[in-house]
């Protein structure tokens, strides 16, 4: 697997005048490099930007995507590279995409629910819907767990405890305003309770959150299924519910969902692939076809299975609509959670 570890080629528009100057320079270089005349994809090498550090979910998605494209030779004569642009939960990456890469169909970016939350939290002017969505590709289920010896046996127990006194429940999960936080808020809202009382403790990653759950520091933990799978299998954590529509099986046991437990709520940690704004319609169509080819590849299905991702494929306008809806929902929810 060819890795171009950490990111490199470009400067990031950071609000500093000098970086603006620089972006001017390399944008110019790009234009000189070979024109983005209407509808010419794929006329150059393609770059997939990961707006986060190597090693995370977005990065893995991009690299597996790249892998499938190379294995199946979906872009003959062209190469695909993965570039990481880190910063501010993806805000730096997306701002580069919509300013510097504008109109360039050869730069794609991975995004997802987490970025929607982060941009809301950062009070960013740029939104995910400012890009040209190509397709949503995968989704990961979230799981709500407690320590194995917790008195809480079902999701209902948890909701009842919260109802009796919200201060008695501390919710542990990842970044504030991220998928885990959104999950907590969604559940509480679906139970008809006040999300502003949610005592959410953020941890820097699944590992740290796992430690906090096992030590009994937090009452309940939320993260992606794969993050807790090992502990669940080992019997150190009990699952109260997963958050998708389809039930998930871990260690041969089918897990309940929020829906099956009687709460009309659903959270999917979806990931999507987007292009810069203002690309020609013809290119968008070709990109959709291209991504569809990846999605239908048996190789991709294999990867999905291995990584525990569910297929979550919406293209073109469906994808745009979905992303717009999610943005509205998340913005409202974060407001109700009292963090923006």
């Amino acid at each position, binding site marked *: 697997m*060819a890795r*171009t570890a*950490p990111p*490199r*080629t470009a400067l990031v528009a950071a609000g500093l005048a000098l970086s603006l100057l*620089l972006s001017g*320079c390399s944008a110019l270089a790009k234009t000189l490099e070979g024109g983005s005349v209407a509808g010419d994809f794929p006329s150059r090498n393609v770059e997939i930007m990961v707006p986060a550090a190597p090693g995370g979910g977005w990065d893995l998605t991009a690299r597996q995507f790249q892998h499938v494209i190379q294995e199946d030779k979906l872009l003959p004569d062209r190469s695909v590279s993965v570039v990481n642009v880190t910063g501010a939960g993806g805000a730096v990456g997306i701002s580069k995409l919509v300013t510097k890469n504008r109109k360039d169909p050869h730069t794609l970016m991975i995004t997802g629910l987490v970025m929607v939350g982060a941009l809301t939290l950062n009070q960013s002017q740029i939104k995910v819907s400012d890009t040209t969505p190509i397709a949503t590709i995968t989704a990961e289920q979230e799981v709500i767990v407690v320590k194995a010896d917790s008195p809480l046996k079902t999701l209902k127990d948890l909701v009842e405890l919260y109802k009796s006194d919200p201060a008695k429940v501390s919710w542990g999960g990842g970044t504030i305003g991220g998928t885990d936080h959104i999950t907590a808020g969604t559940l509480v809202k679906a139970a008809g309770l006040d999300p502003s009382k949610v005592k959410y403790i953020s941890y820097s990653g699944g590992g740290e959150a796992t430690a906090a759950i096992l030590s009994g520091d937090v009452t309940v933990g939320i993260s992606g299924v794969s993050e807790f799978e090992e502990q669940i299998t080992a019997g150190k954590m009990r699952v109260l519910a997963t958050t998708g529509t389809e039930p998930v099986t871990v260690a041969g046991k089918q897990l309940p969902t929020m829906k099956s437990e009687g709460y009309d709520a659903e959270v999917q940690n979806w990931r999507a692939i987007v292009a810069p704004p203002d690309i020609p319609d013809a290119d968008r169509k070709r990109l959709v076809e291209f991504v569809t080819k990846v999605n239908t590849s048996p190789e991709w299905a294999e990867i999905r299975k291995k990584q525990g991702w569910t297929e979550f494929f919406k293209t073109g306008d469906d994808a745009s609509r979905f992303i717009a809806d999610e943005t509205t929902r998340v913005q409202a929810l974060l407001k109700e959670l009292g963090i923006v």
Partner: protein
Amino acid sequence: MSASEEAATPGVRAADVEVEASRLVRIIAAIVLIVLSATFLVGVFDIRSPKGFDPAGPRFFPLLVTTAWLLFSIGYLIEGLRSPKTAKAEGDRAWFEPVTLSALLVLYALLVVPLGYLIATALLFFAAARVLGSRQLIRDIVVALVLAIIVYVAFTRFLDISLPEGVLGL
């Protein structure tokens, strides 16, 4: 202050104390520190916090840190004012070299992407060596080029880490 210092740590330390800055410079530094910390202390009130100054909220630590900073800065000012007026200051102070080096680094930061790693780095090395007093033109040029090429090739070709290609397009 320095009297009790000496008393507490006799011997080796005394020789080690290198008073490089004059009393005036120290007093100016103390004032800069006081202004900075006071500004940041005021800045605490700009931090978005639904909980106000609750110890569990985002303002509590900044308040502690900036207050401590301000107090220590005042302490430092007092230390400076009390220091003997005859404190030994370094004779001819050379500002030219550090300022030029800083300017070089700013240029490097701006140019490394458009020019490319190789050229920018060779230029940085050469210019920095000259500023730092090297007088052997040929040696400096050769070392600059060789170093830049080795680093570039080693990182991009063997370690698979991309560095900006720039105008050379290598």
